[in-house]
């Protein structure tokens, strides 16, 4: 009698009675359907492989423990186990999302080390120092507004109250401060970048 002619129910019974070869026939008979079913849900071969393995470990345990009621529905039973394991997988991955870095997208192109290295830190210090000196060259009223806005992070309302001028005047002084700074930078050919 060829394997093809033996029903699942008979193979399951034989397996329960100790015939290991029957399990092999059952697995080879249904592996593609079960594997494809799992893959159609998770779209990842490694995860599919894991779930496929876990599903059959459950099948083996249940059969050996005599928990399986034979109703001639071996495949739907394995499918149900696989389906439940797929759900478990998604529950787990929702709780603990895993970043897959195997594709074209590389997270490190987006995430960088925010800490500057020694060279960049030195350049930044130099630029900050140069800028401070340039600001010192501005007229007093413009310099005050710029320092209050950029270094003390005050709002224009607060600046206007502090300097006893209207908000529009404070805005105008800030505008001229920036125009004049640009002029000085252009005149003196200063490079302020890091």
């Amino acid at each position: 009698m060829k394997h093809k002619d033996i029903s699942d129910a008979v193979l399951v019974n034989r397996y329960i009675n100790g015939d290991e070869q029957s399990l092999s026939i059952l697995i080879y008979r249904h592996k593609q359907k079960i594997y494809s079913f799992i893959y159609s849900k998770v779209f990842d071969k490694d995860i599919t492989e894991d779930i496929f393995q876990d599903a059959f470990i459950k099948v083996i345990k249940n059969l050996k423990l005599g928990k399986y009621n034979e109703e001639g529905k071996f495949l739907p039973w394995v499918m149900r186990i696989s389906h439940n394991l797929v759900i478990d997988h998604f529950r787990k991955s929702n709780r603990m999302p895993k970043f897959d870095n195997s594709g074209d997208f590389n997270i490190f192109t987006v995430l960088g080390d925010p800490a500057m290295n020694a060279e960049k830190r030195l350049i930044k210090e130099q630029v900050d120092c140069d800028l401070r000196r340039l600001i010192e060259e501005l007229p007093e009223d413009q310099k005050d507004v710029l320092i209050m806005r950029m270094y003390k992070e005050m709002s224009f309302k607060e600046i206007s109250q502090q300097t006893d001028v209207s908000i529009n005047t404070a805005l105008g002084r800030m505008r001229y401060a920036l125009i004049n700074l640009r002029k000085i930078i252009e005149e003196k050919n200063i490079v302020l970048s890091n």
Partner: protein
Amino acid sequence: MAKLYSECPSKKDALLNPKEATIDFLLNYSKALSVIKCNDLKFEVLQN
């Protein structure tokens, strides 16, 4: 109009199979697993 060619489905299906190593593991696991019945209790034993 350009012709549309889709990938041969049979080729794709052939890839959707578990690895031989997985099946071997399951068959070996099954051979190693035995259930011992003691009164109303059942114990799983994994032999190496």
